């Protein structure tokens, strides 16, 4: 048509290409997480529990993403996540309190240790599979937990240990939750991009091939040795990095947090959310770690009866697993389709009401 309409179409097309870019969703998610902080800055009174819920969701999403590469892509079960996260957090304690190193240096050190640990666990996984592997990793985690309890000089023992602040470059800066929130959301965004890249790349495809059938994968040139090791290294790196972030946010760590329960929670988050979808994992993590603090604790009835929240959470998980084995992401997708249909119906109804039916 005319010049103006054509230009309008062109602009719309440009916006569409931005909208459908794979990274756009991550930006939205990080922005939503961050919006809680923005609302607070505007003067609206947001309860501290809600902020904490979002903070911990962001941190634990990183662990769950690593776990999804291990379980959803590699098909390897592990219950040793808690030990690695705990180790990461104790590294921050030691490096800040005793050695007075910068947080960035700590991250580098943690990455190196994580690679070594991941290699060790990967080597174990070469000979053992399935439930047995889960139990072996659980044992490893329990060993680490016992070390946290006994090595009092380094870890503070069963009473836990805290840090007074973070050393970014030279001086100790008292931990401010808002700045740390920014730091964590940036790290989460980067981690989501990297995870997405791995999942879409030949590596992700090779991992999926290994999960479906190890013999077919080998016939197609996928080295089982290499990719099992890789899956474990990635998940360990993510877990220990999340441990460092946990320490920057909460500035206190205690061995009782890093028990079997935590590992099971991460497993539940991945299974509930959908083990192969990044968005699903974010939803699942929020359901396991954030729902209680962000929603139930804000309603007076549930505050009076705290036992009900635990039961309700359990029932929710059972319902999701029973009816949506693909995870919460499937639920969201089907709901989306249904909502669209319902909306169309509503639109037609309104049209008939407002303009009169065509048939008359």
């Amino acid at each position: 048509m005319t010049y103006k309409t054509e230009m309008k179409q062109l602009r719309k097309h440009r916006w569409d290409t931005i909208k459908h870019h794979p990274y756009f969703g991550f930006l939205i998610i990080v922005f939503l997480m961050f919006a809680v902080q923005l609302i607070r800055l505007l003067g609206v009174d947001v309860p501290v529990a809600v902020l904490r819920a979002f903070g911990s969701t962001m941190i634990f999403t990183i662990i769950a993403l690593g776990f999804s590469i291990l379980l959803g892509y590699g098909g390897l079960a592990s219950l040793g996540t808690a030990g690695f996260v705990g180790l990461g957090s104790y590294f921050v304690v030691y490096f800040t309190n005793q050695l007075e190193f910068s947080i960035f240096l700590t991250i580098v050190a943690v990455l190196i240790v994580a690679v070594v640990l991941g290699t060790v666990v990967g080597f174990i996984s070469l000979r053992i599979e399935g439930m047995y592997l889960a139990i072996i990793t659980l044992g490893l985690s329990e060993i680490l937990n016992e070390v946290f309890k006994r090595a009092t000089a380094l870890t503070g023992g069963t009473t836990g240990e805290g840090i007074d602040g973070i050393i970014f470059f030279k001086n100790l800066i008292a931990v401010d939750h808002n700045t740390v929130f920014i730091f964590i959301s940036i790290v989460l965004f980067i981690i989501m991009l990297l995870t997405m890249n791995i999942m879409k790349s030949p590596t992700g495809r090779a991992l999926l091939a290994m999960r479906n059938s190890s013999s077919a994968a080998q016939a197609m040139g996928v080295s089982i040795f290499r990719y099992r090791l890789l899956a474990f290294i990635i998940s360990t790196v993510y877990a220990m990095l999340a441990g460092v972030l946990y320490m920057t946010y909460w500035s206190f760590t205690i061995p009782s947090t890093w028990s079997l329960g935590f590992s099971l929670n991460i497993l539940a988050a991945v299974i509930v959310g959908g083990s192969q979808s990044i968005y699903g994992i974010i939803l699942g993590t929020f359901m396991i770690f954030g729902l209680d603090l962000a929603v139930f604790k804000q309603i007076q009835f549930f505050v009076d009866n705290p036992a009900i929240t635990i039961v309700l959470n359990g029932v929710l998980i059972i319902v999701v697993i029973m009816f949506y084995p693909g995870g919460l992401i499937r639920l969201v997708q089907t709901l989306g389709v249904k909502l669209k249909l319902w909306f169309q119906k509503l639109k037609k109804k309104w049209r008939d009401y407002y303009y009169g039916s065509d048939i008359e």
Partner: protein
Amino acid sequence: MVPILNKLQILWYEKRIGNHQTKHDFLQSFLPIRIQELNTKKDQKLHHLSLKKSHTILPYEIKANIKSDYWQTVYEYETKKIETKYYWRLRALTQAMKRKQNKSDHWSVEEPKHLQKIQELEQKKQTELAKVKAKFVVNPSDLNKEAYASNNEAIERAYQDQLAQIETKYQNKIEQFSNRANNIIAKHKERLDYYHRKLKIAEQEKAIYPMDENVVLKLDNLSMHFGGLKAVDQLSFEVKEGEIFGLIGPNGAGKTTVFNCITRFYRPTGGLMYFRNNLGEVVRLNDIVVHDIIKEGIVRTFQNVEMIWELNVIENLLVAAHTSYRSTFFGQLFNSRLLRQEEVVMRLKATKILEDLDLSAYAYVYPYGLPYGILKKIELARTLMVNPKLIILDEPAAGLNDAETENLAETIRKIQKEYNATIFLVEHDMGLVMNICDTVCAVSFGKKLAIGTPKDIQGSKVVREAYLGGE
């Protein structure tokens, strides 16, 4: 020490060759695409420019009554738009009237109000229509041809200038890009030649095994014992280049075991296996690890289809090209340029293979729920991703109906002819084997019974005895 160094040297050359080959292939396939892209972009720009010109010249043209037909259609379009808009508004008003009529007790009081509203709407419509008319339809008394003539010239000149600018700009762009790309292609080609020469020299030091010129695979007294059971016993045969070789035998004769030995899933108890790979050199398969077999050019399929159900068909094909990727893990982590280029090259290759096998309709479909015959064909397509020298098919016709088997036979022949691959298959469907195979080898209890053309085997007494039992 020297063999290890030699091996490293060869590995390094192979890696370099792979990198250069990918970049070379990518640029060669990308060059026409990019040029076309630039051309369409240029066309779009020119189109917009002409639209803009007509937009600026519009008022003068109407005043001069030039191109009156065109402007008449635009005028009609605009009028129609306004009319539909007011049609819906009127309909909403009458509907509201009807609704109130049923409810209201004082309709006689309210009715004039509604009627007035409808009248107002009509007036509004008329004013809008008049506006459009004033814009597009000109009175004979207002005709002004001089203003058009003077303005048209200036506008036309400016338009021509801009047009020439855009033309030259894109011409330069295309020229620059193709020059640069061709330069890089030539450079890569030069490097490729260099590394191929170096590789040839390095490979001369490698161990050379004896094998006839036209033979691809040679088994020399292969044995595989499971405890006391001799699954394969002193089996030896040769597979010639470019033929379709069939291995037949009753159930439990050890056919699949032979396959598993060749592809290194089993470690044979005794015997040697030689293979002439893509580069024309003879390798001993006993020395190669199971996941490196594919690099030599041996691909296999499985008895029951082994798909990756979470990936669509084209990505399933890309998994088979896993060994052809040169980008490292960190390259993939950060979605490097090399990876993106490789992805383009591989996807183009996969699409071509799917087209060849009449599977392009399924390229972006998830394999879950597809018919068994299609899945088998997809598996065949998957083997072609690595330019195989030898394709090993484990019971390709199992679970297929007659029509699908016919189709499969055609596909196998096509692969043999167009992709220059040798095919080695185990099959129970005698019709298929006798139909397509050039050479057939019959085995029973791990021992070779007979080898020859399908006719020889059909006439062989030993084979018949093995299948149907002695007298």
